[in-house]
């Protein structure tokens, strides 16, 4: 679970790809595809090689990032889909968008009707 406000973003979200042991780095076929589970809460802007992204907050709520890739490295082979999901990203309202001043305008005094 990661907390963030609408005033903030994640400027450098990094994708790591491993073999079954979870330690040895691996490759995928093609460019990984990034997505937001709810684009109205977080927006994802992936890099050209798909190995990193900028995640911008949009509005309060909870969302996740998913990354999909083809784990089959053989050219022309049957794609082996593989997907990674981030932890929950909880977006709270930032202070810059919270109303801080309320002003009452009394207008001009007039005789009671």
């Amino acid at each position, binding site marked *: 679970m990661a907390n963030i406000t609408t005033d903030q973003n*994640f400027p450098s*979200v990094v994708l790591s790809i491993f073999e079954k042991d979870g330690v040895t780095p*691996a490759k995928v076929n093609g460019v990984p595809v990034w997505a937001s589970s709810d684009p109205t809460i977080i927006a994802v802007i992936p890099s050209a090689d798909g190995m990193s992204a900028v995640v911008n907050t949009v509005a309060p709520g909870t969302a996740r990032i998913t990354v999909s890739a083809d784990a089959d*490295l053989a050219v022309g082979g049957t794609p082996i889909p593989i997907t*990674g999901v981030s932890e929950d990203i909880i977006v709270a309202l930032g202070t810059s968008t919270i109303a801080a001043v309320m002003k009452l305008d009394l207008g001009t005094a007039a005789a009671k009707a």
Partner: protein
Amino acid sequence: MTIYQDAALRAEMQAAIQALVPGLRGLQELASITTLSSSARMAITDQIDRRGRRTDLLKAVLSALDALDAAGAALAVDGYPDMPKIQIFGPVFDEIQGHSGDIATAVALFEAENIAAAKLSISLGTPVGKL
């Protein structure tokens, strides 16, 4: 070929051996005195032994330098650093060349293993204020 001879080291070792000689000779003359007490004889003998041991070590360095020179000379005689191709009888050459096709075929039987990725991990990093 460059022969790396450490003439300075050799000279130092030889000088050190020569420097030990007078003292050693004197100690041996002292040890020949028949009226020496056992303590004095023991002290003299100890000094003789130490100088003998030091001389042996210095000579070991000189022997190693000799071996280095000999090995370097042998390497030079062997033509180092050149390693020319060997000329062989035509039919023998043809026989060896004939195997090259088989070797290439055998090598082509292998290919690098494509290890499939099994896990994608997403690191969010630290949030920062929007610019």
